[in-house]
């Protein structure tokens, strides 16, 4: 196994579809097992991200955490700034903000249009940063307007902002204005491409690449038994395949017809059929999955692509608790 000399930070993602006490149990465990970052997803149909993060802040001591990711359409930027500023009072220096354009399906549910996503994210980040600096924000953007928004308290510290990005322009923007970028990708082919885009933005802003924490936000599943690890990854991969644009599927040589069949099966709630259509190539492309050794090898490949943070996302493993232990015992110490 080829060694890569690099310092990688480990992050973990939780979805607050689970009750708060399970998430906090895992958060405490993850902190103990050496994870550096904890990301909680933000969707209106799950439990609230900031309430979950506030509880996490109280039960943990050193792990850095934040929404991964929120969006400026459903949550006004001043409310986002207010939430992270308050969190930063509970856990000073441990808060980060992940922000992206959101997902269209969720926004469609509540009748919110994803208007000018690049501009919206850019403007939102500017508003959050200015609010955090204590400024009275007067802002007339293409998407958002502020007419003297100011906190009645003094926000403390600086919150690093991570941009959730997938498309080339959003990745470039992340490189340009972000303190970090959360790339939804698992395979070196996708991450190589993403990092090149981030580099463009970094160079445009006359920054160094090391100024930006490049995180691969992966669908991850680990178990000592490869079959068990793979089985746990299949449902998540089926959804990723169904949601991926043709250009991404083609990059991995995935049959577009088969992807369409998965999409139809999921739409019809025919889970067995959808999961049965997931091929080993799809699992390889859209997850980091296997025994600890296999996962280490995959992480090493992503390090070569230039990532500085590896985020372990759903499903994490057939048993989340055992997977966190396994990652803490066998994967993190390797780096």
């Amino acid at each position, binding site marked *: 196994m080829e060694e890569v000399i690099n310092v990688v930070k480990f992050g973990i993602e939780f979805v607050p579809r*689970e009750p708060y*006490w399970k998430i906090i*149990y895992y958060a405490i465990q993850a902190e103990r097992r050496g994870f550096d970052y904890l990301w909680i997803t933000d969707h209106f149909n799950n439990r609230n991200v900031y309430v979950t993060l506030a509880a996490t802040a109280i039960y943990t001591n050193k792990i850095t955490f934040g929404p991964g990711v929120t969006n400026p359409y459903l949550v006004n930027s001043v409310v986002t700034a207010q939430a992270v500023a308050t969190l930063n009072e509970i856990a000073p220096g441990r808060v980060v903000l992940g922000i992206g354009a959101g997902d269209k399906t969720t926004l469609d549910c509540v009748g919110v249009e994803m208007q000018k996503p690049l501009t919206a994210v850019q403007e939102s980040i500017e508003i959050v940063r200015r609010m955090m600096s204590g400024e009275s924000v007067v802002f007339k953007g293409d998407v958002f307007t502020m007419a003297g928004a100011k906190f009645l308290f003094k926000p403390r510290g600086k919150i690093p902002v991570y941009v959730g990005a997938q498309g080339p322009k959003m990745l470039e923007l992340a490189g340009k204005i972000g303190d970090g970028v959360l790339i939804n990708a698992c395979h070196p082919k996708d991450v190589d491409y993403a990092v090149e885009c981030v580099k463009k933005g970094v160079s445009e802003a006359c920054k160094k690449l090391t100024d930006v924490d490049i995180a691969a936000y992966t669908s991850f599943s680990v178990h000592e038994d490869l079959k068990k690890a793979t089985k746990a990854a299949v449902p998540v991969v089926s959804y990723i395949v169904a949601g991926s644009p043709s250009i991404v599927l083609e990059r991995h040589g995935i049959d577009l017809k088969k992807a369409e069949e998965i999409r139809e099966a999921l739409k019809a709630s025919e889970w067995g059929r959808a999961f049965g259509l997931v091929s080993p190539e799809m699992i390889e492309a859209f997850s980091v999955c296997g025994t600890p050794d296999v996962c280490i090898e995959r992480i090493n490949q992503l390090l070569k692509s230039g990532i500085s943070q590896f985020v372990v996302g759903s499903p994490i493993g057939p*048993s*989340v*608790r055992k997977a966190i232990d396994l990652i803490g015992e066998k994967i993190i110490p390797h780096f």
Partner: protein
Amino acid sequence: MDMTYHKVVETVPVEKREAISDKLIDLVLTSKNDEKMPASLANTLLYHWQRNLLASDSGLATLLEAAVLLEPDKTVEVLEQEFQLVSTVKAVREVFMKAEK
């Protein structure tokens, strides 16, 4: 927390507590009966976990209470078949029946 579970814990041999705590937390975390977990019990559970005390007397009592609430049959099965704790199962059943009255 239901203090009667402290009595149940007294029937658990000290050398088995770590392993039992490990099994019970798995039952609780993988249970689909989340809605049965009272917030006060969940908070007590987290209090003990934060301090690494889930195998202590009070930690194990909390875990037992949570496991019995969420997964009564599986809890009895674990205690009886994996750990051969006949007296613990008897004590759990007594607490359970008392609570049902």
